[in-house]
Each structure stands twice: as C-alpha cells, then as structure tokens.
C-alpha cells in the first residue's frame, strides 16, 4: 500500500498587488483561483504522485505550493497556473536515507564516504512532468473575443471563459462563471483555438526559461 500526499495549493493576494486589496480583508479572487488551480493540477495528472512516495506506508514528501500575486492586472488564473508549472518543473527533491532508528535523514553530498545508511533515493532529482496544462482566459463581448484581458477590461466586461489544454492537446477544464453573453459552440471553438496557439507559445517560453536556469 502506497501513501500519496497531495500538494496544498494556496494563492495569496497581499495588499501590495492591487489598489482594491486591504490588510485584513482577503481578496475575493484568492480562494477561487486556489480552487481552480487545485482542480486543474489534479485533473491534468501532470505529476505522478508516486514520485513523492519514499517508504511504502511510512514516509512521503509533502509539496506545498504557495503563489504570491505581486501585481493583479487581469487573467490571474493564467499567471498563477504558469508560475505553478514553472515552480514544479524547477522542483528538486533532495536525496535521503533511512538511519538505524528508521528515521528519514537528509544525505549531504559531502557525506559520500561515510554513507553507512541505505539511500532511499540516490541523488537529487526533479519531478517528471507529463502533459503540462496551460490556460488562456478570454472575455466574450458581443461578437468579439478579447484574449488575456487586463484588470480594467475584466472589471467592465462580465463574461469570462477560461480554457485549459495540455501539451498533447487534451481539454483539461473549461470555466465560464456566468455572465450575460452565451457561449455558443463557435465561440468556444475559437477560444480553444486561441488557447492551442497559446499552449505552444508558453511551452516554448517555459523550455527556454528552464534551459537558462540549468546553466
């Protein structure tokens, strides 16, 4: 029996990020984005949670994902999802061992000569990310679609559609929280097409960023 530990995901909006947010009064968007993020990441099966398991039935890594919004200027979920993926793709899991008492201890690289304990996983390693989800938020207004709206545009328009696709083209989630404009099939298809294009751009962007960090 294996124990899987699901990451806790929190999206924070400190007062620094928007004229609307004040100390003590949490922003309305914060729990919504947190929930959307949790749903998207678990639905996409982006990571194999077995990789976080260490000793069957005894120990596992817990990953806490904290996202801080520094400047809220629209399409918060898109920015949050992209930053979550970038952070997870940069995550490094330290090598650990189990000592005689059965406790888990970190193994430092300098300790190579005196390694009496058996390593549970032998070296620092990264998570394997499978199909990666990316999102695009659009505003529907009459016959027009506005991709990647600013905060000002969002506050005026009432109908938003968020499409999440993964890198293999599968639909992960579709989110339309009300609004007066009906989402006809053609509009949804247009949004999906825009998102497909966006997925390619963001995937390239993420690859370049990760390559730059590994140098």
């Amino acid at each position, binding site marked *: 029996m294996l124990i899987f530990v699901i990451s806790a995901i929190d999206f924070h909006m400190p007062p620094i990020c928007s004229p609307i947010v004040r100390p003590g009064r949490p922003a309305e968007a914060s729990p919504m984005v947190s929930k959307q993020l949790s749903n998207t990441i678990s639905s996409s099966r982006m990571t194999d949670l077995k990789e976080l398991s260490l000793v069957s039935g005894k120990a596992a890594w817990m990953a806490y994902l*904290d996202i801080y919004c*520094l400047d809220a200027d629209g399409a918060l979920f898109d920015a949050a999802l992209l930053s979550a993926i970038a952070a997870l793709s940069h995550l490094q899991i330290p090598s650990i061992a189990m000592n005689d008492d059965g406790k888990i201890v970190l193994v430092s690289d300098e300790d190579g000569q005196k390694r009496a304990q058996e390593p549970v996983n032998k070296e620092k390693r990264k998570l394997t990310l499978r199909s990666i989800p990316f999102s695009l938020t659009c505003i529907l207004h009459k016959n027009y679609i506005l991709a990647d709206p600013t*905060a000002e545009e969002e506050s005026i328009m009432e109908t938003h559609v968020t499409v999440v696709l993964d890198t293999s083209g599968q639909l992960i989630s579709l989110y339309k929280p009300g609004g007066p404009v009906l989402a006809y099939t053609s509009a949804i298809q247009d949004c999906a097409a825009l998102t497909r294009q966006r997925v390619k751009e963001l995937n390239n962007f993420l690859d370049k960023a990760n390559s730059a960090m590994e140098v």
Partner: protein
Amino acid sequence: MVGLSLGETHFIQGGIAQDLRCDGRKRLTYRPISVETGVIPQTNGSARVRMGATDVIASVKAELGKPSLLQPDKGKVSIYVDCSSTAEPAFEGRGGDELAAELSNALQRCLLGGKSGAGAGIDLSSLIVVEGKICWDLYIDGLVVSSDGNLLDALGAAIKAALSNTGIPRVQVAAGTSNDEHPEVDVSDEEFLQFDTSRVPVIVTLTKVGRHYIVDATSEEESQMSSAVSISVNRQGHICGITKRGGVGLDPSIILDMISVAKHVSEQLINKLDSEIASAEAEEES
C-alpha cells in the same frame, strides 16, 4: 532553517568576537544592497530591496480620502507588512502574522513619528488637497519575499526607495464651491508630484551576540542574539525612533554606544541607498 549544531554556534559567536563573521564581514559591515524601483506598475510607487538573501518589496498606493478630525491639515499614512509563506515555512498560514505585526509597528514608530505627525519622514501637510475635506491617504505595503535576517532594515530601505519612486497625481479643485459643499476635484492623468524623501530616515539594527553587537545580522546570527536595538536615523543625524526586541536587558551605556554607532553607520547606509535609488530611477526611465 534547520537547527544549528554546537560547533556551528561556537563558530558564529567566535567569528563575531574576532570581528570576522562567517561570510567574511566585519561587525559593522552590511551585506551588498541592491535596489530596483517601479517593480509593480499598478501602484503609485514601488521598490524591491535585496540585502544578501533577504528580499523585500514595498509599494505605495494613494487614494483620496477625508482628513482626520484631530488633524484636519494633514494627510494619512498607514503601513502594513505581509510575511510571505515562500520566505519561510514557519510563515505558513498565520505563522507570519506575529512577526508581520511587529515589523509594521516598528516601521510605524520609526517612519511616521508620533500621533501629532511631527517628525514624520513625510511632510503630511503636503498630502492635503482641501483642508478638513480632502486629503491623500497613503497605503504603504511591505512584502517579505525571502528572509535571511535583518528584515526591518531591508523594509525601511525599501519603503524609502518606494517613496522616492512615488508619483501623486496633481489635483485641481473646482473654483466657486462654497464652504459647506463637498469640493469637486479633477485628478490629473499626466501630471504627478513627487515627495521630498530627504527626511525619510533609514533603520539600522544592532544585534547583540555575546559581548559584541553587529549590524545586518543573518538569520543564523539572529538566532544567537540576546537582544537587538533598531534605530532610525535621518540625513541630519537625528534619531527618529528606537525599538528594542529580545528578552535580555541592556546596560544603558551600551545603548548609548549603539546610538552613536548607528549614527555613524547610517551615514554610509544613506549615501549608499541614495545612490542606489538614483541609479535605479535612472535605469527605470531609460
């Protein structure tokens, strides 16, 4: 941060006693300081300050409000600090609230002066639009992004830099309004006033470890402290505020020494900070 072994604590304390700290600094030397301004475009002013691995962001937001009845000729300023849970796992949930409140209170005392507003780093009268009716309310927010000691000095520096970066829209008051009516104002989108930040003090924290005290303590050094005194000093060399934390009492003569040393150190810090802010502003405009 993991706990320190006995050997490590001896090493830290011995280094301080020998005036050669773990990273090679002397007791009264700051870590390298870098300043960025204009990092958050939706605010009226913002700045990011790094001292070693300590990383903080400060922003200033301005909105029109009504002056306090007690001081109808002055605007209002409030300071709030948020400790990000990405800075330290202990800040998860409400873990950072206590430290954030402590930092907010210390910054209020050091930068805003007393209730009369005298001695404030900002001339609060310059925030008045119509006396008794309309003033600017400033909201200063600090965010601790990464924590490796000396948060108060870093936040003080970031707020000073953010205020230097702040532009307040020019306000035109409609003529012909009678005294009883609420004035109509026109807020400009293009003209901005900037603060005179020459009187904004810097904060120098002196952390006592063993028989000596140091400036710009790292987290590990702070874990060895018996007490710490934070002194805010302005460019004229005047003390604007003093706060002490840590449980151990201090001999008054040591506190006087600390004040004298803080004045000396603050001169270098202010000059360094002002040049960093000037180059950051120049870089932002390019």
